[in-house]
């Protein structure tokens, strides 16, 4: 399983004086479950983009295990992400017209990464997240069910890291709690490192620890710095 280390990471946008993300040092241990909180505009999404390899920092290293993903070329980074990271977003990004099962399989199929057991695994995951009919069209799912399908999709390729960006923010409290429970228990079952950006207190409280971002810096930076 993978640990995350950020080292002197900085992201700036032209026209802005201060960097939107400025983290001197951050370490997340393998299999740790960490919450990231902070007001909007504090750099949470930028942090997710950087640690998933969707974007690269202007400076610094982003180490997952021994691999600095900031140094990888875009295609390599895409492949690394597909193999390593399971992503759950606030918007479910399920594709209309495809069944729950096809949605779960879509990213792997587009990468031609479906093996013999992939289909069985997809069925098992859908059953695990509580979707009874795998061939149900996504248009007929409730919002809670949609996010559960998205969780199953994130886990299909047995990622070493699970990253969720506000996974419960667009759900009612009942469905939100279900999804939070699923994320935590599935991460623990699979031994994946879990990083969740959230405002949801009930979710944050169940994580191993919580980081707070403020204006692109870790609010408990002194503590994190000492720990490193």
């Amino acid at each position, binding site marked *: 399983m993978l640990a995350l280390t950020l080292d002197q990471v900085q992201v700036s946008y032209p026209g802005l004086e201060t960097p939107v993300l400025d983290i001197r040092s951050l370490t997340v241990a393998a299999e740790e479950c960490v919450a990231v909180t902070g007001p909007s505009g504090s750099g949470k*999404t930028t942090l*997710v*983009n950087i640690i*998933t390899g*969707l*974007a690269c920092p202007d400076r610094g290293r982003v180490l997952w295990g021994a691999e600095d993903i900031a140094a990888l070329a*875009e*295609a390599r980074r*895409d*492949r690394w*992400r*597909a*193999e390593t990271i399971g*992503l759950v*977003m*606030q*918007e479910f*990004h399920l*594709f*209309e*017209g*495809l069944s729950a099962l*096809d949605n779960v399989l*879509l*990213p*792997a*199929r*587009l*990468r031609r*990464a479906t093996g013999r057991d992939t289909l069985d695994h997809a069925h098992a995951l859908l059953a695990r997240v509580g979707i009874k009919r795998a061939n149900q069209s996504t248009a007929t799912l409730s919002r809670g069910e949609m996010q559960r399908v998205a969780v199953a*999709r*994130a886990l299909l*390729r047995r990622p070493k890291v699970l990253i969720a*960006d*506000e996974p419960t923010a667009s759900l009612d409290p009942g469905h939100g709690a279900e999804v939070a429970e699923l994320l935590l228990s599935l991460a623990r079952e699979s031994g994946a490192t879990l990083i969740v950006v959230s405002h949801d207190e009930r979710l944050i409280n169940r994580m191993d620890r919580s980081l707070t971002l403020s204006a692109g810096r870790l609010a408990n930076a002194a503590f994190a710095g000492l720990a490193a």
Partner: protein
Amino acid sequence: MIRFILADLKRLWAASLIIVLLVALAAALGVGITLQERALRLGSARAADKFDLVIGAAGSETQLVLSSVFLQPAPLPLLAGDVLAKLKQDPRVAFAAPIGFGDSFKTYPVVGSTPDLINALNNGAAPEGGTPAGEHDAVIGSAVDLTIGQSFEPMHGAAGDAGHVHTEFSYQVVGRLMPTGTAWDRAIIVPIEAVWEIHGLHAEEEPPGVPAILVKPKTIADAYRLRGEYRGDQTVAVFPGEVLTRLYATLGDARQVMSIIALAAQALVAGAIALITIAHVAQRRRQIGALRAFGAPRSAVFGIVWIELLTLMGTGIALGFLVGWVAVRLISDQLTRQNGVVLPVEFQGGDLGLALLLLVAAAVIAAVPALLAYRQPAVAALRS
């Protein structure tokens, strides 16, 4: 990927349909122009097949061919009466048949001639019903709406003109010709002597003049010699095929102009589609970003957009070929009903090249939004 593309097209069916129809119309325009010009060319060439050499009084060669081969009414100057007699006695001539215009019945031209012409038009066979024997016997083309045994009175002037009816003279239909796919299918052929008589010309005094003579030379060499001899101050001799070739050159120019117009229309459609699809890709940047974020490679994103568009445009091109063919078929059938000339509407090997060219153009156009999708950053998936 195919399942995703199908689901996507189903979801965007209205926009997809518009793209297919736009492409189909643009393709049909180009295909239609090509097919119609070809049909006119082939049809007229086949119509002139039986007319080896046509001799008329000095004047327009084109008009002589249009009047004799296509029976287009026009006042032709008359040949001197002795030309026909001289040709009939010429040893190089298999037959020489006069073609005399002037009368009509309903919308059908009444043409005065001799049995030689009937033979030539009917490939040597006797007309169905019988061969004309007397001055009042008429033979009709296959598309003439008269029955054998029916009588009619000819009207002076071309079909559709206001003229007087020759009530003093009537013909009886004795035979019907086989279909030839030419203007002569709509003709009523009567003895030339009857035409002269109706118009007060009498063959006994001195041979009356005729507007045109169809000549069948015995050999090709004879044909050229005869044409040379009868090209002079008084007469003109033409190979209809040669005159048509000149007309095709003009027709070809017209086609070229129309092809340029069609090409411009196609370019406009191509531009419109490029704009629509680029806007569409921009609208879908979050979805495309999400695909990338979940692990789809950039090549798959390119492939999805490219195959989707190429499928739509390919369908449009195929549909356009069908629509173009059907439209030209309908137009040509209407023209055949009006003047008898059968216009063959057919695709040729070269059309495959046009289809391929359009497909290649479609592939290039589809590559533009596909490339934009390919280059779209994956970060767009996440809320910002």
